[in-house]
């Protein structure tokens, strides 16, 4: 698809979601809101995984840290949206900047292991630093922000539109990023690091910037999530969250932004419908993953693309 058609398809999808939302019953609307937020998270991971070729297994860390920042600040200190957003994004980005220093030197499986370990550190903090995070209990009662608009974000529909607008902005920003000269460099690194070095690129710097930017957008999703869920707990930073997100990217089609958004939507709805019937969600998730690897290694979007090999 040409760029214009991709943008058109994306805008249509957003408009469609915005258009049907008022007619949806409460539960599907909740799920759609969740899908929109998780889509931002999955797209942020894809900047690393699909575009740069870096499989991070600890991406929930940046998402979760931003969510915790919002949870703690808005409940304990009554901080408003601007403060929570600023602090959440700053902390997520700073954590990614720190962790990136440790992770980016490693490649392949080592990168996977280091990001996994760093993710576990954050999970450990969420679990053990009880005075700050309330440990296993998590932080409940996160209030929805007040924007000073006629509509209160505590109602599901206005909050959905709020999430949709933020997600659209994040999507547009990431869309420009992956199509920029810098973004082309990321794809070059995915394909051949040695050639990139020979052409004059500091591969380390490119990867590091991608890592930090990806952490920033994971933070955007984390801030939305804390407000949406009204609760932040260790589940938000645990390994399963990172793995689920990786699966969303793999399922939808890595190296595209629409793919992870589609994957996120599919997984969110699947997860909620499946859990009505069984508690074995992880088993189903695993089966889906194996299916994707076997039958659609380039994801749902990749399988339908005509330039497929």
């Amino acid at each position, binding site marked *: 698809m040409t760029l214009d058609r991709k943008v058109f398809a994306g805008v249509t999808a957003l408009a469609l979601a915005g258009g049907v939302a008022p007619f949806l019953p409460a539960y599907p609307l909740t799920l759609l809101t969740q899908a929109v937020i998780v889509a931002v998270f999955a797209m942020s991971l894809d900047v690393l995984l699909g575009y740069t070729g870096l499989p991070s297994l600890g991406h929930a860390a940046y998402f979760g840290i931003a969510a915790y920042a919002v949870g703690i600040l808005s409940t304990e200190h009554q901080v408003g949206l601007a403060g929570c957003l600023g602090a959440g994004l700053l902390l997520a980005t700073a954590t990614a900047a720190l962790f990136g220093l440790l992770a980016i030197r490693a490649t392949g499986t080592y990168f996977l292991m280091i990001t996994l370990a760093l993710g576990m550190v954050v999970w450990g903090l969420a679990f053990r630093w009880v005075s700050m995070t309330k440990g296993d209990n998590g932080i409940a009662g996160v209030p929805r922000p007040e924007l000073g608009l006629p509509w209160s974000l505590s109602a599901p529909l206005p909050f959905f539109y709020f999430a949709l607008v933020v997600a659209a902005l994040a999507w547009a920003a990431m869309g*420009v990023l992956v199509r920029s000269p810098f973004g082309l460099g990321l794809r070059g690194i995915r394909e051949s690091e040695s050639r990139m070095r020979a*052409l*004059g690129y500091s591969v380390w710097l490119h990867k590091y910037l991608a890592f930090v930017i990806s952490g920033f957008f994971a933070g955007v999703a984390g801030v939305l999530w804390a407000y949406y869920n009204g609760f932040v707990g260790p589940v938000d930073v645990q390994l399963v969250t990172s793995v689920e997100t990786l699966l969303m990217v793999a399922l939808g089609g890595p190296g595209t932004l629409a793919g992870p958004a589609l994957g996120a939507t599919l997984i969110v709805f699947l997860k909620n419908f499946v859990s009505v019937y069984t508690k074995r969600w992880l088993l189903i998730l695993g089966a889906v993953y194996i299916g994707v690897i076997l039958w659609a290694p380039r994801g749902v979007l990749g399988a339908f693309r005509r330039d497929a090999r």
Partner: protein
Amino acid sequence: MPADDWALELRDVSKAFGGLRAVDGVALAVRPGERRALIGPNGAGKTTLFNLISGELPVTTGTIALFGQDVTRAAAHRRAALGLARTFQITNLFPSLTVLENCLLAVQGLSPVKLAMHRPLTRYPRQEARARAALDEVALGDRAGATVKQLSHGEQRQLEIALALAGSPRLLLLDEPTAGLSPGESKTMAELVKRLDPAITVLLIEHDMDIALEIVRHVTVLHYGRVIADGTRDEVRASPLVREIYLGA
């Protein structure tokens, strides 16, 4: 000639892989604008030497200077910034990107544009014009929209050269540009190298001695990591040592 007049100067450069000394005490000095061939049998250490010069591998001992500047410890991308470009013996391109995107990567590699992330590529028409010009130089202009995977082997070898030329290098390392090409394609490739701007210093690895000697006047022969002969083509041809081990005569 004073040291800083060399385009490339190697002193006592060695590279050990475990117990194997793939490059062993090599000294080499190449004048600006010179065309030099590096020949030698399989496993002689030619590619390893290129990897040392380009910074892809660190040296075990010795020093390397580019245009009078010591780069022994410099990262590969810093050496590229000094005007060094290379091609690879085993085609090393960006397989799922288009030919134009491959060339754009090469064009922006030495410019600060490579870090721009606030505007799409389409807003950089000057970069694209330069990339297209680099493609035209190797007669790949009409393949700009194809992905690398869709190119023939010969076309991929041409793109190898285009990427190296796109950054307007001062020193060009060509690692067997004719590898895997038919005799006809090899000849075209040799013509292309001969047509290059005479200001560019070229160091050429070539398996086929006839092709090498057609392009260059000066030859360095490597054997088991050591320089065993160095001189004009006639001198090298006359060397009994070279005849014995390289030409097998």
